[in-house]
């Protein structure tokens, strides 16, 4: 960076500081009016209005896929909004790329750091702002400026350290310094605590507090309620691409936010009789799962599912449900514990093979049908045998028995009313609801002993939801043991015979499905009925709450 621009950024900082001293906290730093963005048929953001006040920390909370990251990407110029305007500091701005965003005073700290691992801190900070082809002058200027920034915001970090040698907490600090070096007045942090240890997260919050005191505006994206409560001034809740509420943090509480996040979807009334419970078909004993970083994702979970009952696992996404499903279905390995399927254990610590488990009567409707449940470029009929392609009824020696596969697919299309009714159509061309029906038909028509289902109606239209729920109940009445994971609380409450709530990798409570939404919401937020040391939960949240998807 040249001397001139260094001076300029310093002026800007001083100007901002003066403003905040004047007490100009009511004016808007960012104002979004009617921002909409779709990708193909998916509305990632729908008509979003957002007002972030200068000198505040504004939290944006919502489930995965609620549209938080898309919104911030629009603000930072990665995407262009289809409609709507962006005002920065009271002026309408066109942010066509990240350069424009930086110019407008916006800095972004990404969830996955954008640092060159084998460069030094200083080199990373001047990267893209070298201000000429001779580096020497730029580095000297930068060193000076960095020293000042470090002093001003207590962001100590050795400028000569190589990034890959630094712990993640410090790497994140470099990202923040990078933004400040470019004169950012508004900092956007995308899931900033996801990779941090609790101590590092605490330190980050202190830094953010200091930045706020210096007049910076901070927007923080997260799906962790406690962080919102701990640090923000205002909070906006996003769900399904919309901002459903904005509250002063002081005027709201964890329960309300949890309820807003999960949302009340369409009223779901599923007729069901009382369940006729049989023998235990799936038993999980002290299961613990760690991710590749060694963080505990599933923490000593035990549960039983009997024939003829639906056990629902409720919880905010990212609390270990996905990992639990993956281990039971043999896709990933557990650290310790046992899973017993129909009386015989499966080798959860290494030997489990999804194919063998299928043969033993375990059907799995995966959470992510696009990446797991289906191969989107395949024909419908090919997907309707995925995972069962070794079954003799579909084969003629080494050859696929195309007639049998087609006939089987056509039968399922009719039974499950899959539209359009064409087994030759590419799977990607079916709607979300019909794609899900393809998966359900495949897994349910196998006459399984145990059925595990993740997010049965995610991205599914209302008509199909009803159909899918009915089918699940029918399976239960036919005596299948069903383990259901959903982030839609209403779905769990209307389908399950027993509700388990998962939080930070643990089952924190069991309730009857008739328990009130508020009661379940509290459990989902990690507030257990038994008094538990609050610090422990906090540490757990910070350690484990991160979604791994």
């Amino acid at each position, binding site marked *: 960076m040249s001397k001139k621009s260094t001076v300029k950024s310093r002026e800007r900082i001083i100007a901002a500081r003066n403003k905040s001293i004047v007490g100009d906290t009511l004016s808007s730093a960012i104002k979004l009016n009617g921002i909409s963005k779709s990708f193909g*048929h*998916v509305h990632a953001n729908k008509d979003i209005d957002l007002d972030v006040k200068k000198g505040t920390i504004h939290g944006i909370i919502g489930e995965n896929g609620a549209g938080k990251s898309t919104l911030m990407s629009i603000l930072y110029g990665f995407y262009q909004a289809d409609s709507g305007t962006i005002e920065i500091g009271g002026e309408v701005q066109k942010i066509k790329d990240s350069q424009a965003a930086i110019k407008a005073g916006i800095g972004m700290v990404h969830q996955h750091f954008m640092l060159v691992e084998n460069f030094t801190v200083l080199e990373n900070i001047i990267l893209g702002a070298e201000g000429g082809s001779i580096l020497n002058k730029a580095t000297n200027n930068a060193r000076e400026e960095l020293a000042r920034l470090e002093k001003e915001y207590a962001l100590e970090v050795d400028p000569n350290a190589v990034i890959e040698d630094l712990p993640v907490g410090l790497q994140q600090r470099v990202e923040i310094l990078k933004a400040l070096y470019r004169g950012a007045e508004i900092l956007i942090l995308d899931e900033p605590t996801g990779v941090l240890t609790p101590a590092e997260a605490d330190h980050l919050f202190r830094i953010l507090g200091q930045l706020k005191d210096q007049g910076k505006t901070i927007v923080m994206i997260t799906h962790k309620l406690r962080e919102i409560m701990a640090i923000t001034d205002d909070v906006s809740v996003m769900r399904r691409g919309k901002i459903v509420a904005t509250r002063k943090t002081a005027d709201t509480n964890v329960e309300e936010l949890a309820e807003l996040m999960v949302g009340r979807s369409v009223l779901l009334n599923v007729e069901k009789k009382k369940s006729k419970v049989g023998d235990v078909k799936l038993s999980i004993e002290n299961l613990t799962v760690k991710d590749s970083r060694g963080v505990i994702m599933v923490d000593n979970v035990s549960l039983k599912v009997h024939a003829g009952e639906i056990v629902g696992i409720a919880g905010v996404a990212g609390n270990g449900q996905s990992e639990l499903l993956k281990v039971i279905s043999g896709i990933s390995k557990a650290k310790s514990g046992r899973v017993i399927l129909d009386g015989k254990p499966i080798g959860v610590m290494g030997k489990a093979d999804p194919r063998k488990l299928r043969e033993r009567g375990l059907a799995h409707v995966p959470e992510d049908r696009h990446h797991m449940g289906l191969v989107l470029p395949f024909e419908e009929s090919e997907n309707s045998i995925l995972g069962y392609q070794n079954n003799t009824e579909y084969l003629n020696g080494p050859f696929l028995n195309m007639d049998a596969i087609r006939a089987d697919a056509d039968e399922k299309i009719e039974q499950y009313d899959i539209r359009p009714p064409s087994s030759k159509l590419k799977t990607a061309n079916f709607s979300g609801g019909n794609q899900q029906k393809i998966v359900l038909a495949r897994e349910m028509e196998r006459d399984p002993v145990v059925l595990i289902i993740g997010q049965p109606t995610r991205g599914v239209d209302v008509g199909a939801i009803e159909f899918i729920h009915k089918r699940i109940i029918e399976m239960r009445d036919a005596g299948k043991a069903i383990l259901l994971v959903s982030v839609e609380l209403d779905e769990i409450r209307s389908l399950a015979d027993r509700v388990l709530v998962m939080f930070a990798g643990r089952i924190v409570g069991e309730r009857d499905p008739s328990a009130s939404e508020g009661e379940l919401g509290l459990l989902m937020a990690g507030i257990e009925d038994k008094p538990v040391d609050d610090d422990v939960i906090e540490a757990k949240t910070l350690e484990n709450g991160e979604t791994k998807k």
Partner: protein
Amino acid sequence: MKFEFPNWVEYGLIPFLNLVTAFLVAGLVVLIVGENPLDAAYFMVRGAFGYGGGIGYTLFYATNFIFTGLSVAVAIHCGLFNIGSEGQAYIGGIGVATACLALDRYIPWYFTFPMAIAGAAIFGAAWALIPALLQAKRGSHIVITTIMFNFIASALMVYLLRDVFKPEKTQNLETRTFETGGQIPKLDWVFELFGTGLQGAPLNYSFVLALVCCFLVWLLIWRTKLGFDIRTMGTSPSAAQYAGINQTKVIVIAMLISGAMAGMMAINPIMGDQARMAEGFPGGAGFVGIAVALMGRNHPIGIILAAILFGALWQGGADLAFDMPNITRDIIVVIQGLVILFAGALDHVYRPFLAKLFENKTDNATSNLAGEDT
């Protein structure tokens, strides 16, 4: 999000546009050299398709490219980019030469032929095995390992030709010439049906073998359980994991088949044309195979068409260099390079533009079909 074109655009228009661009740029090169591009084009097309011998040579070259194109395509269906077809073809030659040298004096060619096929396939596959294992078990990138194996193959073959295969009295790095029992007959009779001869072109029964392999690859990829596993693995490794497909096994098998296809290319020049194995016989066919597979969209039918196109370039180019003395062999190589560049490497040049053009049209069509979420 990747835009999906209607079939006629994906398989027709885009390759066509790439080809036209390649020829326009090649035309410029011809202009710079001081010749008339239209004349040059005429000589080239006439050279490739204008007379029996031309067609014979075009199809002879195409035979090589079909084998290597299939080799690349099978690997791509499994999500693997096999750059090593060249080396696998070269090593495949050991199998062909060994079969011919051992048997040519004792049995007729049609008994040697199956042995040569088996030898070529086994040696080609073996050369693909180590990169495959390294990829499947250790995650070493197949592009890097196969390209390095090309160099190893090249050095190994020079050694083998000099110290093992070469008869004492010759100076060239080549085996002895095979007797008739190690020579595949030419396809003269087919051309005589059309009133022309092959006029010395080396087109032989390997071409038929190549077409049979096309059918077998189609059968494998789209009609067998193994092909299903290969395609699942290549399209969505996470879905393959969900489906309980043994990823290591599928990667290794796909690479073995890919290597076998490449190895069989060696039959055409060795047993079908020169009746001996000479140094450097693959002549870059392995690399052309990449462009052929890309342009042919990894489908056997597309591969046949693309292989014939490249065969025509090779043969037409040779005739062009003969008819227009200003255009040297090197300029021909430039033109061939341009086609490979535009058909292969720059395949994506027109895509963003066409995507915009077709977006609105298909948006309406699919939204009727698909509803709100996909």
